[in-house]
């Protein structure tokens, strides 16, 4: 009997193996959790159109994903990105006050302007989602038009919000943030490292402990040394004649404490915010900063070790000598 075995081509075998693995992966493919739209973001049509085109696929419950986004292993990354994006900002569950909306729009503008959003690896496979300068101009025009929005008294979710001060409440003891960062008033004896303002009409003074000050002075903050602490006092602006602005009502004290072993999910920084006269801490769970603070700090302040208010490198030796000594 002639039993001639047909020799299989190695390419065909490899193809079948790959196909098999690929098929097997689909068994572990969980579809993205479907969610309903409870309240969609409201903005002018041209703004919404840009957000829908470039942001909604991740930052909403209205995904319009390509077929290849739904196949494992690509779907694993896509689903993770969408879940993470929804946590940070969800345009389909947009229960934002006008002040929060303004804060969100500034965050969006800054993310787009710096080229951090939409993510590069997303636009690589979805080129139509790329942002043009014209798109940024539209977002910018709209965002700046929100500058005169009335301050809102309602408790806000934005991390840089203004919170009305309750008069008759003083802290019985120093509070602790849910992530373990403790409030300390040592910062009142630290050096001022910088002063800043934000679109929310606030005045801010930033202090650093000795480790942080030394890190700035020696340009050694990539990364910041463990033990660095930076505190920002935020006040409402009190406007006087001639463009003079003073620090008015206290809003909050924002802490960043560097401990690279402890705060591994937030680039080594422990974030905390203590608001009002009673210094009540922000956040319900230990990883609150993962969903709020670090999103902006990571994307926009990487150059200065994730701190926004590092003093500018603009002073000459001579100027320092003349004025500091």
């Amino acid at each position, binding site marked *: 009997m002639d039993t001639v075995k047909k020799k299989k081509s190695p390419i065909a075998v490899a193809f079948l193996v790959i196909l098999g693995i690929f098929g097997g992966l689909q068994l572990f493919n969980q579809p993205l959790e479907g969610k309903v739209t409870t309240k969609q973001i409201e903005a002018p049509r041209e703004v919404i159109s840009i957000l829908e085109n470039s942001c909604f696929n991740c930052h909403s419950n209205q995904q319009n994903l390509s077929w290849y986004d739904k196949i494992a292993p690509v779907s694993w990354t896509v689903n993770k990105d969408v879940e993470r994006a929804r946590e940070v900002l969800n345009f389909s569950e947009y229960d934002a006050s006008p002040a929060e909306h303004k804060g969100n729009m500034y965050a969006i*503008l800054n993310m787009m302007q710096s080229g951090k959003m939409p993510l590069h690896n997303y636009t690589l496979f979805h080129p139509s989602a790329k942002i043009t300068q014209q798109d940024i101009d539209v977002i910018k025009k709209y965002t700046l038009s929100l500058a005169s929005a009335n301050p809102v008294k309602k408790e806000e979710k934005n991390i840089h919000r203004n919170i009305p001060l309750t008069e008759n409440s*003083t802290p019985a003891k120093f509070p602790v943030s849910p992530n373990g960062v403790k409030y300390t008033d040592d910062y009142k*004896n630290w050096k001022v490292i910088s002063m800043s303002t934000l679109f929310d009409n606030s005045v801010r003074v930033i202090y650093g402990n000795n480790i942080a000050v030394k890190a700035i002075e020696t340009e050694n903050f990539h990364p910041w040394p463990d033990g660095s602490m930076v505190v920002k006092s935020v006040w409402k602006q009190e406007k006087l004649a001639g463009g003079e*602005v003073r*620090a008015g009502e206290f809003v909050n004290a924002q802490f960043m404490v560097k401990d690279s072993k402890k705060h591994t999910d937030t680039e080594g920084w422990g974030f905390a915010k203590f608001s009002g006269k009673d210094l009540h801490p922000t956040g319900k769970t230990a990883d609150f900063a993962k969903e709020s603070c670090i999103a902006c700090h990571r994307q926009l302040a990487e150059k200065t070790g994730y701190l926004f208010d590092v003093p*500018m490198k*603009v002073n000459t030796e001579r100027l320092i000598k003349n004025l500091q000594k």
Partner: protein
Amino acid sequence: MKKILFIAMSVCALFTACKIDEPDKDLHRVIFDPGNLKFLSTSLNTVKETSSALYGNQEALKSLQENHQLKPDSEFKLVTWKYHENPQYIGGTINGELVSVETLKTDKNGNISYQLKTDSKTENNPNNKEERIQYIMSYNPVTRP
């Protein structure tokens, strides 16, 4: 031979072309050292685009707290900076160049001295001395729970 020479020259040109310019290499980040004075208050001026930090000793703090009257042994320093849009965040500003340091002191008998230091000069009796003293005394210490 010509080819080798050409390649060698091209490689040299490539290295010289890659010289990295550091426009800010002679510039520094400054953290003002107020000595034994403490931070008392802050302000900004949106017309001049400056921001200031007011430092003082314990007597200076009391002077501001108690009717804004200069007490003996007070020492203030008002440090003023130019501010700019924060290069990392549209919608925010941050201080940049140091502009001036004004020092206001009283001795134990209440005698007042004032000094203005800028990049180009140091003046002890500028024409607007009284106005500047009044300005410094107009600050309220910031509230920090």
